[in-house]
């Protein structure tokens, strides 16, 4: 009998806000109005952080630009859109309506007003009166609003962030989240300030200052607003590694640590799990929805539940923060751990990307010498190419090629001459070859027994100062 599969519970309680699942829409165009948010809830989103409300602004046209990569669209997205351009009372009325119709879903009001106490008190009151389950203070918006002393202009100055957070806390009855900007040297400075100011939770990261590209015919950067552009906020898959690092920094710092809603390039359930493994309680998504629509949440929920079943996790908190302790300062890593690359010949397709990567980008320990050492036992890439150029090739035409016979039998699908070999004695275990290899499982990194006890840099040098670290 197979084990009975228990459907995992993916509902969460985040800083006092309950949600049917950890998937929230980030404060952005997908949460611009009530009609959208209700359709999103119908599609399966557990919560929505409303498009930031405050004094209405005027937006420009155009607003977005993207970074395409290798034929794929929108690896990164940039926007210069400001907060909601709709009247405050319309937003409040729609928040109330959504809450009435979707009482079990989380509706968070994202707020940004000028830096005075009364203004903040007033918008807190209005949002909570409308029925918001929580408040998210937008201290992160990096464009436009920051020029008016709001958004990241607040988020970059810990004292301001602490002060405004404390004003909000004077008034708020619902949980208060502070959304952090990544456009700062150390994100923990503001996280600590928010915590000192009394925040109940944090959201990270907001978008990153960016210029995505320039039109090479007109010399106008994108997005083009009547011949000019402005830096925008960068998001999408490209920013995930930056976001994960900042999430880890905040969650590993006792003075910063609070319930954290993870944001930054989350496109599928695996991204979401990674943020949760580093301590997040919910995740927020925007770019992936702007690219593919609300429907993606179904795949996120399904993938998460399947993975949890497979791993035996019954609820989100079972795996939350599991990877946090696995991130350490470099000085604590074991210097006596050794891995080497192993090429699985039967899977190799002979592209030789590992060979050229190792020669030009790593440690010159992958060779093409399986047919025996010739004059060029360690032939350089240039020597290899020169040899190939001299070879005479012809179109094979059986009638004319009587003599040719497929004589020697090759042991693998790829000719032995094209299957690289790793010199394990020289291999430093850098991973590069396995990263460039296009075939899944063709190059694996395998541990070599060094018979040495684990020893970190700190242990080896007897001090805790940072070693001379790799700087490239």
């Amino acid at each position, binding site marked *: 009998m197979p084990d009975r599969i228990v459907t995992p519970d993916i509902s969460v309680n985040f800083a006092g806000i309950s949600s049917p699942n950890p998937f929230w829409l980030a404060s952005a165009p997908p949460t611009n109005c009530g009609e959208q948010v209700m359709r999103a809830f119908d599609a399966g989103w557990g919560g929505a952080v409303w498009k930031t409300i405050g004094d209405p602004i005027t937006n420009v046209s155009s607003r977005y630009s993207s970074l395409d990569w290798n*034929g794929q669209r929108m690896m990164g997205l940039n926007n210069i859109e400001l907060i909601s351009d709709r009247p405050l009372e319309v937003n409040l009325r729609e928040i109330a309506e959504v809450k009435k119709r979707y009482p079990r879903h989380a509706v968070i009001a994202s707020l940004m007003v000028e830096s005075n106490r009364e203004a903040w008190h007033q918008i807190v009151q209005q949002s909570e009166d409308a029925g918001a389950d929580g408040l998210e203070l937008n201290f992160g918006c990096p464009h436009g609003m920051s020029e008016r002393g709001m958004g990241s202009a607040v988020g970059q100055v810990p004292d301001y962030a602490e002060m405004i957070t404390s004003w909000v806390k004077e008034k708020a009855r619902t949980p208060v989240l502070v959304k952090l900007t990544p456009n700062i040297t150390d994100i923990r400075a503001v996280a600590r300030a928010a915590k000192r100011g009394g925040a109940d939770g944090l959201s990270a990261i907001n978008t990153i200052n960016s210029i995505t590209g320039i039109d090479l015919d007109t010399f106008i950067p994108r997005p083009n607003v009547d011949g000019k552009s402005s830096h925008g906020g960068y998001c999408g898959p490209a920013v995930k590694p930056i976001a994960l690092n900042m999430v880890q920094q905040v969650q590993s710092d006792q003075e910063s640590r609070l319930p954290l809603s993870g944001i930054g390039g989350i496109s599928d359930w695996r991204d979401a799990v990674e943020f949760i493994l580093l301590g997040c309680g919910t995740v927020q998504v925007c770019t992936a929805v702007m690219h593919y629509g609300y429907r993606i949440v179904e795949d996120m929920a399904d993938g998460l539940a399947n993975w949890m079943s497979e791993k035996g996790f019954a609820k989100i908190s079972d795996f939350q923060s599991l990877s946090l302790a696995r991130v350490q300062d470099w000085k604590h890593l074991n210097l006596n751990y050794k891995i080497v690359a192993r090429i699985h010949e039967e899977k190799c397709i002979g592209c030789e*990307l590992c060979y050229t990567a190792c020669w030009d980008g790593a440690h010159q320990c992958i060779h093409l010498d399986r047919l025996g050492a010739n004059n060029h036992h360690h032939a350089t890439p240039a020597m290899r190419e020169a040899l190939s150029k001299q070879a005479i*090739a012809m179109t094979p035409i059986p009638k004319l090629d009587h003599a040719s016979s497929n004589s020697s039998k090759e042991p693998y699908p790829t000719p032995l001459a094209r299957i690289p070999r790793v010199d394990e004695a020289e291999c430093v275990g850098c991973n590069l070859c396995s990263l460039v290899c296009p075939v899944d499982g063709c190059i694996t990194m395998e541990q070599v027994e060094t018979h040495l006890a684990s020893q970190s840099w700190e242990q080896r040098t007897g001090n805790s100062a940072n070693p001379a670290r790799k700087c490239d």
Partner: protein
Amino acid sequence: MERSHFFLCRRAIVGKVFCYQESGVSTLNTQPGNPELVARFPEIHPPFDNVAAVTEANRCLYCFDAPCTAACPTHIDVPRFIKRIAQSNLRGSALTILDANILGASCSRVCPVDVLCEGACVYHRYNKQPIEIGRLQRHAMDAFFQNGAALVQRAHEQRSGRVACIGAGPASLAFAAEMRQRGFAVTIFERKPLPGGLNTYGVAEYKLRSSDSLREIELIRSLGVEFRFGSEIGGEAAFAQLEKDYDFIFLGIGLGAMRSLQIPGEHLPGVIDALKFIEGYKTGGKLEVGRHAVVVGAGNTAIDAARAALRLGAEDVQILYRRDEPSMSAFLFEYEQAKEEGVKFHWWSQPVAILPSQGHEGIEAIECVRVRSGANGSLEKVHASGFRISCDMVIPAIGQSPLLEFLEACRGVRTDNGRIQVDRATGQTSHPKYFAGGDCVNGGREVVDAVADGKRTALTVAKMLEKAHA
């Protein structure tokens, strides 16, 4: 041979199309814009649009020392030209191609990529479709021609040393282009009114249009290659004169006419050999065809002729071949495409006579017998196996016979089995003044093989001239 007998080519631009004309004689029936021809011969591999090309280019792994490059006789740096397409550097892409293969445009259309670059793609070993290298190459080359076809001239000063090419087919063209790029004077002698050899006259129109072939040759002409059309070279005196006038002579003479069937009735009207048939519709404006056509032979040219007959309106086309499927010399993909289009194949069938039609001019049937493989591989007729196929057109396509008489005239240029013998690496024949490449050397392969021969030979000849005139 007197210089005055040579005709200089003049280029006339008709619309967007180049026409070559002999002085005084307007023989050019090349009507590249002939709407009926274009309509009947839609391209078999339509071009990529820009986004599709970039998407396909991005699939390329950028292999090191890539197998596709090794498989290409001209060693085009395939990953490099593909990467440049992905980076919207179409000019750089085209120049990468042309640097290795001056006929990169026609090769992109006619190469049997399944057995060359695309056949070598590592994706075959990864359960994936190979990169569409041929179509990508065409994409880059089309853009190059659309944008003015500005080639970079490598050598600017004229060097001492003159070479002649006999025949204006792909081997000579590649040889000539490379020699010009190195600063040497080149004259090409061609007995036909148009350059390009089979590229212009003999490749099925749905693969390569004559106008595209000529457009490409215009590029070579622009490098300063001199063409003399209508120049049939034969006899001692002509060769003696050539040897006197030029330092070296490149033989790019191809294979000559198709072999004859040597059966009764083969000279009747209604019998036309495959190359003449193809040449007729491509450049002669002859778009008429029989209702019931029989093609004899199962090589690539036979397939081209059969498929052309269908496009021209034949109701049925049947191919006779005296051996079986595995023995035919047509590429598998050509065979498959022909079958899909409705060409019928008769294996182990040999024609014995073509029967004149009763009452009017022409033919009414082809008389055949079954054959089988006898002792030591020779064919023997099967007793009482005669059969008859009604037809009003017979197209023999049983291989080209080398121009043997011509070769004999070349005094001391050794041949073997109808092919000029050369040193593979240098292209040098047994006669120190003569070099050779293309079909007359390799027995009839592809355009790309001819280009490779021509280019490789040019490297040798250029070195010898540099030494001689140092």
